[in-house]
């Protein structure tokens, strides 16, 4: 009998040779890569001289894309682990508001306010995860509840404490704080000053800042985004834990049977998603100096859209952080680029829908290729 198998091994006519092209096609990032190229090509043609590709313009869509990237990394890993978090947007509003309440209303040092807020948000993420794991309810529903609960508190707390829904003045308090610049600061200021001096990038024409470069550094928001993408990508593809994330989302039961701690993986991913939302909020609060009750509205869907454009499956078990990052880039570039191209802004949603639809169709096709379904 074993001879028979050997023979079959030698000549299994059913294992088709795969062309390198086809192999390249079945990567989750493929849709994202193609989309990025197409989107940039389009805007190069239609909006090149609109200011989209000058230093201010590049910084503008980079910042917006970086925002999407930060929440997309969390949403991506969570989606691959087989769960959703619809409370991301509310979490952004909530964590920003908590930083403001801790630092402005309660007068804590900003770094303590930030650290406590991070701890609080990660704990809420863990609670989300535990409820999902313990009850077995779809995370969709559980986090939908958190969406409302957190948003409610984000409006209620500042109203009760400060009688208003926007708490400002954080920039002044954060002056001289050691932790705040890690979220709200800028790096490479010297380089940009030099580029401004040598005329590579434009400088301000008037006012007290005349002569300063229009872009005076890379915001930490972008640094965070790149760092999270790299860490997320390595975690997912190059570590044991990454394999567990795939396994937990691919088939939780099968993963449990081989000893993967599926529950722990999922809870940790909920916590990581909350962490990403908190990074987003902290960067925003430190940059703008205020927290508002309406911050982060609908951001959960934007994160999910970026992840799906980036090739992840809504059903879990498949996806890529790099893809999600490209999805976020596409999202950001299209959103801001349409303004540059002078397209009526209400059409943005139309484009978003069209891109999303294409991404989903493309992903379905890729998955069929991978699993060999017809």
């Amino acid at each position, binding site marked *: 009998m074993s001879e028979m198998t050997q023979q079959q091994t030698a000549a299994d006519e059913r294992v088709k040779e795969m062309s390198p092209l086809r192999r390249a096609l079945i990567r989750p990032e493929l849709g994202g890569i193609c989309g990025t190229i197409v989107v940039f090509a389009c805007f190069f043609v239609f909006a090149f001289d609109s200011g989209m590709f000058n230093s201010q313009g590049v910084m503008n869509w980079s910042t917006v894309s970086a925002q999407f990237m930060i929440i997309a990394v969390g949403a991506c890993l969570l989606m691959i682990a087989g769960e959703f978090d619809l409370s991301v947007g509310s979490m952004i509003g909530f964590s920003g508001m908590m930083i403001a309440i801790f630092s402005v209303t309660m007068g804590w040092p900003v770094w303590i306010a930030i650290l406590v807020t991070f701890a609080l948000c990660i704990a809420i993420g863990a609670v989300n995860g535990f409820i999902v794991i313990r009850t077995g309810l779809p995370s969709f529903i559980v986090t939908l509840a958190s969406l409302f609960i957190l948003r409610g508190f984000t409006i209620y707390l500042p109203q009760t404490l400060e009688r208003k829904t926007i708490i400002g003045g954080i920039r002044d308090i954060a002056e001289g704080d050691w932790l705040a610049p890690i979220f709200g600061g800028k790096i490479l200021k010297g380089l940009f000053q030099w580029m401004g001096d040598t005329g590579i990038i434009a400088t301000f024409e008037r006012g007290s800042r005349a002569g300063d470069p229009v872009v005076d550094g890379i915001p930490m928001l972008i640094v965070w985004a790149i760092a999270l993408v790299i860490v997320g990508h390595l975690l997912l593809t190059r570590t044991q834990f990454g394999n567990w994330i795939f396994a937990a989302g691919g088939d939780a039961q099968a993963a449990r049977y081989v000893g993967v701690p599926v529950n722990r993986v999922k809870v940790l991913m909920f916590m990581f998603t909350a962490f990403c939302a908190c990074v987003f909020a902290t960067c925003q609060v430190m940059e703008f100096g205020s927290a508002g009750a309406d911050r982060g509205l609908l951001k959960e869907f934007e994160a999910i859209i970026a992840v799906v454009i980036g090739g992840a499956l809504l059903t879990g078990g498949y996806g890529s952080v790099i893809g999600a990052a490209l999805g976020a880039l596409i999202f950001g570039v299209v959103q801001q680029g349409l303004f540059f191209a*002078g397209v009526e802004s209400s059409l943005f949603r139309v*484009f978003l829908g069209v891109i999303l639809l294409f991404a989903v169709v493309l992903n379905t096709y890729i998955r069929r290729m991978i699993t060999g379904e017809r």
Partner: protein
Amino acid sequence: MRSLIASVAVGAVLAVAPVAAPAMAQDDLSYVLVSHAPDSDSWWNTIKNGIALAGDHVGVSVEYRNPPTGDIADMARIIEQAAASGPNGIITTLADYDVLSGPIMDAVASGVDVIIMNTGTADQAREVGALMYVGQPEYDAGYAAGLRAKGDGITSFLCVNHTIQQPSLVERCQGFADGLGVELGESMLDSGTDPAEVKNKVMAYLSTNPDTDAVLTLGPVSADPTIQALEENGMAGDIYFGTFDLGEEIVKAIKAGTIKWGIDQQPFLQAYLPVVIMANYHRYGVLPGNNINSGPGFVTADGLEKVEMFAGEYR
């Protein structure tokens, strides 16, 4: 391969998109108006019509932009984007000074002229280096309305706030309360924007607080369902009802006597004037010497004709 075709198709869709190409004006002045309003806020339609008309009248192109969800942080990015695209001027609201002052000051410093419209104050406009402020100071308008109501013998009220996270709306309520000389306290209702919810919440509030003298709504979003609520519980025409802003339903209600007065901040002026002022400034270097208060104008049952004709369009 099919995936490649799909991607190309995405490109094709982008390519054939209706790029709004405004009629070429003689000297190519282009302005951007940035608002803080979410897509769903129909009140801003008047603004859109106002800038379109002004653009036609003086021959400039004006684009309207807003954060789709009304997130002010997103609005900051839109102002940055608008500045980067290098228009001649930006007309923007100043819905949150902390968030928007930075991007606006950057725009001013990079050579783009700015006029603040609608939300914000004259002081804030001066601080960010804007040319001027065109709008209705919200607190003052609320205060004026409060004084008026006090004169009519009102001592308690309900303020129906449909966007409670928007500070300027809270200021209207606060101003009204201060004008009346009462505490705002529990009088402000977080109604949300869904018409059915607004209606039910108003009815519930009025049935638990039956001795409420007056209702103040902050725009068509809260006024329209409130009118229905009052008609349903029989308080229409009986309870003292004032509202901010106008709209078709509000005008009808004023005519019917359900609404005593509407505070018209005249958004048309907030949109039309900045465009015209800026175009003349850029062409001939002339600029009015002061800020312009577009409101409050109290609209009552007398003299409704023009309002009725253009409600929702220019009024």
